């Protein structure tokens, strides 16, 4: 009971502090929590806004999905093959510390300001943590486990799919969870840079026009999206890797 109530209480507490701070400061650019919350139904009820938000979600889903589908096999292969790791490692080392949003102007020059550019930026943001965690997970797979599989007659490819993949799954899903949050971040960032549609577009347009209620309401909406996605993902993750979880665990999510 307290476990379920705790995150709700934390949210209520945060809103309360916001409300009091805003009342104390009396600034035009800092609406109260209640004002911001009251604006949410207006945004969600507006067809134009809804189309924008759904477009964001679609790009995020596609970017995240393709990134996961490409990164897991790549990371696992890197973890099990020195040659593959030697080839891709330097490449990733160069891309890793570069903020993906910083690449956007270049990508925009090539691919325009449309969906492809934004989805590509999300893809880049999600790929690296998923590759890294898949790589680490595959590297840590016990050699003897693979030998046991080989003795049963599993081919190298079968061992990669049927032993390395499940054995590394807890680590892979940790990477995916980081990737999911990064997908949300890169989604908003990309829409901030190439304003055309999306949740980030609503937010920054409202900022330009001084509609601070809408700005804060959008922050709440995006935040809530993040929390819901993370909670949903955490549920799926927990189901998939129940076999690896310690008996008692500190939940670090809202699921």
């Amino acid at each position, binding site marked *: 009971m307290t476990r379920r109530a705790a995150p709700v209480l934390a949210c209520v507490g945060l809103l309360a502090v916001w409300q009091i701070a805003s009342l104390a400061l009396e600034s035009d650019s800092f609406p109260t929590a209640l004002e911001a919350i009251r604006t949410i139904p207006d945004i969600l009820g507006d067809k134009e806004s809804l189309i924008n938000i759904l477009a964001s979600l679609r790009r995020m889903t596609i970017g995240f999905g393709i990134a996961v589908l490409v990164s897991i096999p790549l990371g696992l292969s890197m973890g099990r093959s020195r040659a593959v790791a030697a080839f891709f490692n330097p490449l990733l080392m160069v891309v890793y510390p570069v903020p993906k949003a910083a690449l956007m102007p270049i990508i925009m020059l090539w691919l325009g300001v449309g969906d492809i550019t934004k989805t590509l930026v999300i893809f880049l943001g999600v790929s690296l943590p998923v590759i890294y965690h898949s790589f680490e997970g595959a590297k840590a797979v016990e050699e003897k486990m693979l030998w046991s599989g*080989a*003795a049963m007659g599993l081919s190298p490819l079968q061992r990669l799919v049927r032993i390395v993949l499940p054995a590394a799954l807890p680590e892979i899903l940790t990477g995916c969870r980081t990737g999911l949050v990064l997908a949300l971040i890169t989604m908003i960032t990309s829409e901030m840079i190439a304003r055309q549609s999306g949740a980030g577009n609503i937010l920054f347009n409202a900022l330009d026009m001084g509609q601070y209620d809408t700005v804060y309401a959008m922050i709440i909406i995006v935040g809530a999206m993040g929390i819901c996605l993370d909670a949903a993902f955490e549920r799926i993750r927990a189901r998939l890797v129940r*076999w690896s979880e310690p008996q008692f665990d500190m939940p670090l999510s809202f699921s």
Partner: protein
Amino acid sequence: MKVVPSRSSEWVRPVTSQRPASTIIGIDRVSQVFQTSTRKDHVALSDISLTIDEGAFVSILGPSGCGKSTLLYIVGGFVSPTRGTARMKGQPITGPGPDRGPVFQEFALFPWKTVLGNVMYGPRQQGVRATEAEAQSRMLIQMVGLKGYENFYPKELSGGMKQRVALARTLAYHPEVLLMDEPFGALDAHTRTRLQNDLLNIWERDRKTVLFVTHSVDEAVFLSDKVVMMSKSPGRIREVIDIDLPRPRRRNELLLDPRYQKYVVEIERMFDESDEVGSAS
């Protein structure tokens, strides 16, 4: 070729095997050289020749670092020797195969599979139908004493239970040779004794060929028909000793048997000698 003298002449000849034994594994002048991090060559195995008869329980006994596990991995096909060849039924070993089933000290179970899932894995890979594989696996799980634990995950089991699952998982795909790499090395003394007894009981049913790596003299003498003693740096075969003790062996009887005690004392004495030689050089 250096022929390793067998001590068997000093002991009474074995009477246990009725049928004429045929060679199942032949190791011919095998050497294994590893390159260490300092780029120096480390000779793990030097010129090892050994034949193992079908249906024999053979232990490879030696101090840590004598290359006894490496020898087992070569027979398993997990490691290729630097020189020489290992043969299984006359065919050179080029890789792992279901005719040689390993059981490792680290258990190496598939943690995402239940006990039943682990044991069924091999038969399913060999194309056995699911219902049939399940029935066989359940019987094996019962045989290793884990009835009731079919749906447990490895993390929920103790070390001894994990090793029982590992044994059942390997037996499930009917290897002709069991390759056991210090299988009871990570277990406490009590569990170890119980697993030794159970292994012997299971082995006495179908008398599969077993190659068993250990550093425990008691364990080697208690289980084996033949003990291959190795010395280290470089790893060589020092002595091959036939253990002529009646089967089925019962631990409580054997510990009181002067012949058993003589084997243990004799082998320990030989190891002490080699240690002195080692420390003097």
